[in-house]
């Protein structure tokens, strides 16, 4: 039996319709791009194994593609469970998709707690059609406490970087949460390893937003060594 020390990370990719979520996942997982994608109806899934230098470890990214239209929440929400990271994507050329970023963040937080999240501005090659300014994007990223990546999925610019960052951040969050002597519900400050001072607290109306999910990204480790054990031997660069 082959021994596999793969680390698994479930990554959600969310954001309004048409911002390039499917293309981004395909670009990252398969290195390809076409502009003939169908819209995603419901959810889709792809995986990608990548050796992450910064972690000195191979990470298996389980990439969950979700329909951007809100009506599909009824279906897509179930797939939020167990995610260890999320990409919130919007498009340079779609104002509404930018305006919806905070809403997507609170949706992710409501279902998953404070997992690793990155903000992705896609289609940066279309600057001449831009409907959001660089400053307002940066301001929003700071306000939400998210690291911003500007990508051009079409040209494959900055795409892998997003996922590598998420893998690192996920690990940092888990390490920070490693000796949780007493359990929740009080909101442990340490867990928000990212710039927390400026982050707005998204209140979902109950305590769910504050619940931090410390479980590994997936529960299907099938008797393999637990993720936590494996990770305690890693160091952050």
């Amino acid at each position: 039996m082959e021994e596999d020390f793969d680390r698994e990370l479930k990554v959600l990719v969310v954001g309004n319709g048409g911002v390039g979520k499917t293309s981004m996942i395909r670009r990252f997982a398969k290195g390809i791009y076409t502009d003939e994608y169908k819209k995603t109806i419901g959810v889709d899934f792809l995986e990608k194994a990548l050796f992450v230098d910064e972690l000195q470890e191979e990470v298996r990214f389980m990439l969950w593609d979700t329909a951007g239209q809100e009506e599909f929440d009824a279906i897509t929400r179930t797939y939020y469970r167990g995610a260890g990271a999320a990409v919130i994507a919007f498009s340079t050329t779609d104002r509404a998709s930018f305006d919806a970023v905070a809403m997507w963040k609170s949706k992710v937080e409501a279902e998953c707690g404070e997992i690793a999240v990155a903000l992705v501005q896609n289609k940066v090659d279309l600057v001449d059609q831009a409907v959001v300014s660089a400053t307002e994007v940066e301001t929003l990223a700071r306000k939400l406490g998210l690291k911003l990546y500007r990508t051009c999925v079409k040209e494959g610019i900055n795409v892998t970087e997003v996922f590598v960052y998420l893998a690192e951040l996920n690990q940092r969050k888990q390490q920070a949460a490693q000796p949780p002597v007493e359990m929740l519900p009080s909101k442990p400050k340490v867990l928000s390893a990212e710039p927390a001072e400026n982050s707005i607290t998204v209140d979902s109306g109950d305590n769910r937003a504050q619940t931090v999910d410390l479980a590994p990204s997936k529960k299907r480790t099938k008797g393999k060594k637990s993720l936590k054990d494996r990770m305690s031997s890693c160091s952050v660069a």
Partner: protein
Amino acid sequence: MLGVEGSTLMSYMEQKPMKVKRRARKGILPQFRGLAWFILSGGRALMANSGIEGQNYTAILQKATGRDKTSDEAIMRDLDRTFPTNLYFMDRQGKGQLALYNILRAYSSYDPKVGYVQGMSYIVAVLLVHMNEEQAFWSFSSLMQGGQLTAAMSPAAAASAGQGSSSKVPASSTANKQQQASAAAPEAIALRGMFTEGMPLLQLSLFQWQGLLESELPKLAFHLKTQGLDPSLFGTHWFNTLFSYTLPFHHLVRIWDVYMVEGIKIVFRVALTLMKLNASKLLAFRFEGLVDVLSSKKVARLLGSLSPNQLLQAALKIPVSSRLKGKGQEWKSFVQNSRP
């Protein structure tokens, strides 16, 4: 059996519904398909009734212009992403995309409670390949209301369809009349429920699907479950696009021939056939492999070398009605009990 302007088909539907059913199962001739669908979907009747009330497509479309910006943008975004490789829909601002845009816009104003939801564009596109824009609009609207003339098949269904089905259709009184006129339309077959808030019909269909799979292919059902593969992951677009998202056209139109007369049952039957055909292969895969094989891009491969005829023959052999009904009742009481 179509007759002049479909007149024969109309009378057959009333007098010899079983014959219509048999013929649809055998496949409608391509040259008659457009007109037959227009009639069988209830589209033509709806158009006529609406006309009497002074509601015509042009007026609806005009009213829709500039009405709902968000919905408009969502539609526009999807035009390019509906059958992106089909000649008719390929070109931005081409004929196909323009007609698609018009219909979806018109519908979202005609039925504002639903508006535009992804999945619809695929259904409209398939209709558009077979008929003109106005006909496609009315056919779609009628399907959304469950306007098939299925009830002609069984008087009992017709009787039950008369009750309670009118409250949730668009507020126009023509729609209600159409419901009674076609006498079909129990809510369960109104496609609208695939797209309304919470997608009740989709949820019901997925629940029924799980039950069917468990009784038909228990081993496979168990395997999918233990691998964590919920039917919503691969089955959503089977149901809310009636396979138009994934299956090749030659197979698709045959499925739709039956759908127009018998409703959503055929979708379950075809899906079961695909699963049966691939069961041993699927049993060998773990989660990632399963998602891949069942993913939307590959559904067509599940057909193997099955011709449209063979697919239909195999599918129609699987009895589903009573099981669907049983699961439907189970779901109904489940939903009722889980209400606060």
